[in-house]
């Protein structure tokens, strides 16, 4: 609104208010923007629902809670109709300790991908706890980050032999 202030000789003030943009037009513009955002959300939500990440195998399972172990997790990304999703970037995250050799992996031509998970080391005074991992497809969204994802619990057991047959730091001291 533009505000015009007029003062006459007697000192009386007159205010005249004039609308520049009609309120209806404003509402149309705002609602247009909102509808656009909603449409973008809808598209990405729809795309997210079309893709499924399947955990095909976890080996060994249950996995010994030792960083000496390499746990192989094979996954496949497919569309609703079963067609493989090739070249998508998958991101893996451990929610319960341990680490991945590479937390980003791309699916191959048939939609397959493989992650290597290094379990946490179980101290002698603790009981093994299962580890939940999350894998998500980061190549699926167009406008807003809505990723298809899957959570999987890796069963953990105490390692049979607590003595490591791997490298120890003492090997580097002399």
């Amino acid at each position, binding site marked *: 609104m533009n505000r015009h202030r007029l003062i006459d000789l007697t000192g009386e003030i007159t205010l005249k208010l004039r609308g520049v943009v009609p309120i209806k037009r404003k509402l149309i513009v705002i609602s247009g923007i909102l509808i656009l955002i909603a449409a973008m959300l809808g598209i990405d939500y729809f795309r997210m629902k079309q893709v499924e990440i399947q955990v095909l195998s976890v080996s060994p399972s249950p996995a010994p809670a030792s960083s000496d172990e390499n746990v192989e997790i094979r996954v496949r990304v497919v569309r609703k109709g079963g067609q493989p999703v090739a070249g998508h970037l998958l991101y893996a995250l451990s929610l319960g300790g341990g680490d991945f050799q590479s937390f980003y992996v791309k699916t191959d031509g048939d939609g397959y991908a493989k992650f290597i998970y290094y379990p946490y080391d179980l101290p002698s005074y603790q009981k093994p706890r299962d580890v939940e991992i999350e894998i998500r497809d980061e190549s699926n969204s167009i406008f807003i980050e809505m990723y298809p994802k899957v959570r999987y619990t890796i069963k953990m057991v105490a390692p049979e032999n607590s003595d490591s047959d791997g490298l120890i*730091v003492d090997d580097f001291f002399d």
Partner: protein
Amino acid sequence: MVKCFLRILSLISCCLMLFALVSCGKTEGKSDTGSKDSDNLSELDKVAREIADSYAGFDLPKINDGKPVTIKVHLGDIIPTLSEIPTAEQPDVFNSTEILRRAFMMLFPNVTVEWARTVDTSSSDAFLQYITTQLNSGTAPDIVSAWGASFAYRGWYYDFTEVLEKPNPFVKDNKRWRDQFPEYVFATWQVSDAKDRVVAIPVSLAAGTSTALYYNKELFSKLSINAPKTWEDLFTACKTLLGNGYISFSPWGGPGSGNRKISTTLWDVQFSLGPYYAAKQKDKLDYNGDGIQSQSELFRAAYEGHYFVSTNDYVWDMWKQVKRKYTTCLEKGYENSDYETKWLLGKVGILEDGLWRYPSELSNTDRQFEFGIIPPPAIDTDSTEFVDKLEYTESGPYRPVPRASFNIIKDSAMAHGGEGNIQACVAFLQFLTQPDNNNMIINEEKGKSISIIKGSKVPPQLTEYFKQPFPKTPSFSWPGGFTNAGAEKMSKILELWVKDQISDSEFKKQFDDEFKKDIMEFVQLMQIDTSQYKKGF
């Protein structure tokens, strides 16, 4: 009609805001005094309780006679993250030190450990300024992580030498805390000062080497270049890469910083050249002949003139190698170029960086080629007569240097509770070096470091890197200046010479003059007794 429209709009807006709120996800808070505010916090508490319970039957000290005491702790890059639950948006959480803090407070209910998160360690100047101000206002932390003994000349730090001779109460059957560590680390600047006082407790070692060269395997294969093992191999590789139109070598650091800015502490000096040149002069530089140059021996050698460039051919030769690298090995304009994108596109042959880059490099799917990783190539007899024949390990690194080490600022600790505070600080550091606790920290570092505690496992992320032979870097050092100000002035002179802005003779004179001033300043600051030294100038 308009009212109805407005209502609909408000409804849509509310829905969108709600959606945005949900999408952003929950961020779990972590208070610095350890209050519980979510289910996950109690999960951390459960683990902390298990750890605390594992010390049942241990003869633990009574800190501050059981009276309350609070310590403020800065742990550098192993301070816990504020977020405790990893999410895809914030995958890197660091909880181990928080769990250990809670376990420690369960064991010693009269001790409160608070994190000091605002310590400015962005540069040594910033740190100096920060600590000076905080000490004056009585708000400095009690434990800091600040480049080992680098600022010991300020007289700030507690001397651990005596307490290291006593047992670590958190380790069963431990006779001497010092025995938990490999002995060579006590000769490094990360741990000991020029009087050989232990002023920092190390908790981790570099992941084999502090730094590494990442190279484009496909490019090397295409141009028939071998991964460089020696300093001379590096020049051969760079020459071939440059000759074929590639960027030969990307020094570590952003434009105008890191190793793109010439200084006396360049990684080449620290890891590829200095120790090898110094080791050849062991008769002069290792006074007790034990094969390890301590920090006091390093200073004495400098004081006696063994690192002056105008009077020692080997010193002159070492600095010439630095100039050779920066004038023949690198592409013109390297100082201000950012090669990261070109690396991803396969246009860079060799990229210099820390081992901390390794985990993210393994996960980088934008890179269009396979990469290899090698330790910094060391100088051998094919480059100069001033070094011994280079030796290699069969596989794996040789005497990795400390990565993280922690000092107690004694004035701060005394002001915050006197001896009781120092007792608590020492006990907390002993707790962090208990093998299981230390391994918990190292595992969470995901290959950025290895444990310093004897008997510890190597993180799985590093086993592939450790399959190759590593040069046996001698336990000798090369001083780049003893005070901060001195090192900066010497670096400036070095830079002018490398860039041909001063002559060889000007460089030698100016560099040595500045070094002598720096040495004398250091003698005063550290109050070093030089009566038994032969003054080399």
